[in-house]
């Protein structure tokens, strides 16, 4: 043995620290390298832009002071707004041969039912499905039949829907306990007690679906106006959905999450902020049936409700004037004067009409008419809808990719793979998914400010990180995110609103030839309500012309 090897060397403290420092340094460098790779490259490659309702132009109404219009034209009925309510009214008038014009602030019609398109797919910008209509809602069934989506009725009188318009299977999945399960009601890894509570809740909803008030009307119906006025049920509007759950002895975390999810989905705020009547209506109001689909199924299209909107649009294509900011509606004897700014030409114009349908939400409508009290009770939930173009949609573990993909306790409502409605085996080079976020982390006013203040890079980070909960490596797959901010996305049925004096009062405009038409009159922002109010306003115009 060599002498030097037998030397008894002690490891000095200095040596030890040096080795430790070396190894620690090495690990940190490696860690940083990987983290950097993740951070710098993670979002930088993602392109896209922010779109939104033309808030800046719209806000000019608040400032007032427009020059007196020089051009004046005439029409029988003027419709302000080309969302579903406005287009539904237009369809009805066109079918009666009544002359009309539709003024729309945005460059494209549709409102919440608008849609976008890129090289790979058409996609929804907002509302994206229609539950199977209730059999009593004949006007809606007729519309679907007219659009070819309802092909007939079976021997039992149940509607038969065109299969390609029904949501393709697999429909819904939920990411819970690190795994995708089938359906949105939490099941996977849920305790038996909570499961039985959920069953009890769903059974109660099934009972309430069929229940009728003293006036023999359904306690919960669509349109809302057809629901029973029996105080036994309308009293539910006074408490929040969460309070109702507690009162009824529903305490499980999973059920509470599910109800928060449902309320956020339809009303843009959780169960604590929504009236129990509205929360129950989400379930009990839907009584649709079909010969060839389960009651719970929906009609949907790659471009969402844009498909229905395009059908309605056929009836008013020539009468539609986009980029028109209506700033003043003045009753003048028998007539109505509607003044608007032609945003493209930069000049103000006037249309004099026999009738006017204000198919706009109250927060706009009340500013247009002279001397209307502010609609303080009308609260609107802000929303964000993002369309995400990506190389492919990762499958994840468990149940396969569905039309609707929700993450348990996620901040967003998850994403919809609307392209699942394509019949083709061949998928385009890139996929487009639609991601929904009700902005309810602050009160509506501040959430709205927050949303309008956030730049694209921040949205990208927020959205990509949210998707990464269920799909860890999704950042690298995302190519583009187009963000649509809906400052006043939908009316919020907060406790007391549906039964409020104010909501009932605004059903009439206070002028015999001016009619409101918007889903906010129902307090529930769904296609069916907008369609109902559009039709109703048109019927009022028709009735007035006859008298």
């Amino acid at each position, binding site marked *: 043995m060599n002498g030097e090897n037998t030397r*008894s060397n002690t490891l000095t403290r200095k040596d030890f620290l040096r080795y430790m420092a070396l190894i620690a340094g090495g*690990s940190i460098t490696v860690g940083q390298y990987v983290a950097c790779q993740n951070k710098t490259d993670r979002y930088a490659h993602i392109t896209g832009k922010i779109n939104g309702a033309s808030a800046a132009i719209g806000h000019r109404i608040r400032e007032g002071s427009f020059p007196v219009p020089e051009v004046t034209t005439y029409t029988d009925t003027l419709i302000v707004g080309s969302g579903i309510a406005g287009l539904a009214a237009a369809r009805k008038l066109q079918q009666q041969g009544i002359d009309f014009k539709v003024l729309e602030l945005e460059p494209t019609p549709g409102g919440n039912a608008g849609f976008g398109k890129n090289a790979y797919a058409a996609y929804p910008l907002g509302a994206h499905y229609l539950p199977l209509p209730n059999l009593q809602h004949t006007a809606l069934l007729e519309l679907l039949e007219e659009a070819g989506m309802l092909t007939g009725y079976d021997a039992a009188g149940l509607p038969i829907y065109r*299969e390609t318009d029904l949501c*393709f299977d697999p429909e819904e999945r939920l990411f819970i306990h690190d795994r995708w399960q089938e359906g949105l009601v939490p099941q996977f890894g849920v305790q038996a007690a909570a499961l039985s509570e959920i069953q009890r809740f769903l059974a109660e909803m099934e009972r309430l679906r069929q229940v009728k008030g003293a006036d023999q009307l359904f306690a919960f119906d669509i349109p809302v106006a057809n629901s029973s006025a029996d105080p036994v049920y309308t009293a539910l509007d006074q408490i929040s959905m969460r309070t109702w759950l507690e009162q009824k002895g529903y305490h499980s975390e999973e059920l509470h999450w599910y109800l928060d999810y449902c309320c956020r989905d339809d009303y843009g705020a959780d169960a604590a902020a929504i009236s129990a009547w509205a929360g129950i209506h989400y379930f009990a109001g839907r009584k649709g049936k079909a010969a060839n689909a389960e009651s719970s199924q929906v009609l949907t299209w790659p471009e969402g409700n844009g498909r229905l909107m395009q059908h309605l649009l056929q009836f008013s294509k020539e009468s539609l004037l986009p980029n028109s900011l209506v700033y003043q509606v003045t009753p003048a004897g028998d007539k109505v004067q509607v003044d608007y700014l032609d945003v493209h030409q930069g000049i103000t114009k006037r249309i004099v009409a026999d009738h006017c349908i204000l198919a706009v939400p109250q927060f706009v409508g009340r500013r247009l008419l002279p001397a209307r009290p502010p609609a303080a009770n009308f609260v609107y939930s802000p929303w964000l809808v993002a369309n995400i173009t990506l190389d492919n949609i990762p499958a994840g573990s468990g149940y396969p990719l569905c039309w609707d993909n929700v993450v348990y306790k996620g901040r967003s409502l998850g994403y919809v793979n609307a392209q699942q409605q394509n*019949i083709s085996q061949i998928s385009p080079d890139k996929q487009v998914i639609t991601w929904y976020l009700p902005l309810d982390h602050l009160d509506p006013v501040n959430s709205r400010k927050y949303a309008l203040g956030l730049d694209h890079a921040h949205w990208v980070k927020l959205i990509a990180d949210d998707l990464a909960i269920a799909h860890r490596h999704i950042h690298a797959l995302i190519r583009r995110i187009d963000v649509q901010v809906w400052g006043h996305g939908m009316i919020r049925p907060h406790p007391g609103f549906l039964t409020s004096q104010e909501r009932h009062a605004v059903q009439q405009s206070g002028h015999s030839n001016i009619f409101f038409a918007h889903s906010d009159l129902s307090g529930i922002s769904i296609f069916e309500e907008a369609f109902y109010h559009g039709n109703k306003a048109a019927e009022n115009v028709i009735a007035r012309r006859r008298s």
Partner: protein
Amino acid sequence: MEALLFFSVFVIATCGLIYELVAGTLASYLLGDSVTQFSTIIGAYLFAMGIGAWLSRFFKKELLSWFIQLEILVGLIGGISSAALFLLFEHALSFRLILYMLVGLTGILVGLELPLLMNILKNRYEFRDLVSRVFTFDYIGALLASIVFPLLLVPYLGLIRTSCFFGILNVLVAMIVLVKFRSEIKWAAYLKIKAVAVILFLSGIFFWANEIMTFSEGMAFRDPVIFTHSSPYQRIVLTRSKSDLRLYLNGNLQFSSADEYRYHEALVHPVMMYGGSRRKILILGGGDGMAARELLKYPEIEHITLVDLDPSMTRLFKENTLLTKLNSNSLLSPKLTIVNADAFQWLKENKETFNIAIIDFPDPGNYAVGKLYTTAFYRQLRHSLNDSSVIVVQSTSPYVAPKAFWCVNTTLLTCGYKTIPYHTYVPSFGEWGYVMASPAALYQQHDQLPEGLRYFAAGVFPQMRLFTADMDKRAVRPNQLNNQVLVQYFEDEWGKYQE
């Protein structure tokens, strides 16, 4: 000198943990259920290390030489472990047994390393120091391994290369000790040659890791793979043995040249007997040209339109001489037009009508293919048919998946077609089913069959229409886009069959 020995401890510890992580990861990749795999692998590995530690007492002389031997062996076995497991996965009767044997062996060898090293060093250092230093570096090495494995090694090197790389490190430790202590070591030259050979071997695996992966995939097939191609739609694999050529799409057998005539004669000739006019024919799927080959035996056919999604499929069966011999050059026939398109989409745009349609899609094993078996599809197809047209749909095995088979029948009935379900035996597939259908009542309109059929004859057909109790009609729901029940039936039934 001292630094070198402790560096060896550090490397040994890192390598030891890496082998354990590789085995755990590989087991969860190949066997699934990562929690079970990881915990049993870690347990088995640690236990084996204990055995190694116990065995260390039997090494009394020539400790340095034994240590070098051991390092080379650990490097070899640890280094080839993942490549060997990948290759053996498809082959071995009991993969688990091999997995745990390999884990056990590596564990024993790794467990021997540190006790042996401490015995070597015990005369050179104070015991207190020795224990403190050896364990310090051991645990630091473990930390490093656990950090770099998931962050760097798996994403950038892959499992095969990772284990090779650390195998080489192990052998390098042996080499360094060998060089530094050459005066104390017996059989130095022999050990040196051995170490170099193992390093070369492991480097070879390192460089050919991709080929090994491909080869191990190839072993999933019974016979040697002679052609593979990944198109945007599917993975096409051809295998060949002495007497048999087989086509697999996404791993599913499409035909075996030994008995495909049974499948294709049963697919084509019944529908030709029942079709009145037979001038214009549509084939959906069937890019292998086998159905077209059978059709071209009828001179009265004027035109065949073949719609297949994948251009690489039709090109392969037009150009490859092995395959054109099988389909008798049918895809080159002037009577035939090939359209590479999505069948559903194509039907939506098609304005022509056909006397006969032959629908030969892959089995409804996923939701995408499932769309091609829905009421929506058959209703769309109706627009490309006359009132008296006759179609046939390949409908999976009525023996393995009776619900799936009868679901195709029910779906066609729901769309207003009259049907004749029938089946035949194809040895490479098993019992196989078809549904013939027409908007009008079905009856036999021709009894002349072409010359030279090897299986089908008019007299055979009544027998094909008989269903024994184990395959007989089941109560099932029609398959719709909005329920995709067929995919569920198919998965349930084939899943159970393959368990």
